[in-house]
């Protein structure tokens, strides 16, 4: 089994806010991330697929195809967007790095499954070089 990873970046803005809480509690839990004017990051998205190299091409997947689905399924919706205000998944959930990783998995998994070869193994999202969240499709 080979794990193949492709990396890309996107830039987006967000804020953390739970509407069920008071402003004080939001500020206490989320700190500066609760500023309702939002702020932004250069996110790095790493997508790992797992499979066997094709005996003819030597590829686990075609990296051009992987790049294209990362762009069409994720970047087209999120790059240079305000995640809270412009993306359906974060109308109801808070765009933390954890939730962004899960949402990226959900966006990519149908395309990877439909291709019928390698399986989606891991999605990792870096909010900054020092902070990342990872989702492996586990319940």
């Amino acid at each position: 089994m080979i794990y193949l990873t492709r990396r890309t970046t996107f830039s987006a803005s967000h804020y953390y806010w739970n509407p069920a809480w008071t402003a004080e509690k939001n500020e206490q839990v989320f700190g500066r991330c609760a500023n309702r004017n939002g702020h932004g990051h250069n996110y790095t998205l790493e997508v790992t697929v797992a499979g066997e190299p094709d005996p003819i091409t030597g590829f686990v997947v075609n990296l051009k195809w992987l790049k294209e689905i990362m762009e069409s399924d994720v970047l087209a919706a999120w790059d240079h967007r305000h995640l809270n205000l412009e993306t359906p998944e974060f109308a109801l959930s808070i765009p933390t790095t954890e939730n962004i990783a899960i949402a990226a998995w959900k966006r990519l998994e149908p395309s990877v499954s439909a291709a019928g070869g390698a399986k989606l193994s891991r999605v990792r999202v870096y909010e900054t070089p020092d902070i990342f969240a990872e989702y492996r499709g586990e319940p």
Partner: protein
Amino acid sequence: MKAFFGRRYTISASHRLHADTLSADENRTTYGKCNNPHGHGHNYVVEVVVAGAVSPETGMIINMVALDEVVRSRVTDRFDHANLNLDPLFVNRVPTTENLCRAVYALLKDALPAGELERVRVEETENNFFECDSE
């Protein structure tokens, strides 16, 4: 829904790799430049990965501020700008990055809720790193 959260911290520390049970020549052969008598230093990167369910209320696995506080009080306050050889943990144990990684794992495991610590990775330089988990 199980996910993972990782955070990187930096500690600058000195160490000397030297085993008392080996002769001077054996130490020199085993550890090379790392055995130089006065020690040397690194900017270590400590990467801490916690696993858990994402809370529907906060969208988080763990509050990063709380994790920072645990890592600061247990690890970075202890090792940053210190000589690792003088730490009680390394009195009878060579402060290789393997052993530093295990020490960090043990210091954090007790301080985080059960099951949360997934993995500790310590990068000694940009080109070498060590990882340990519960195994």
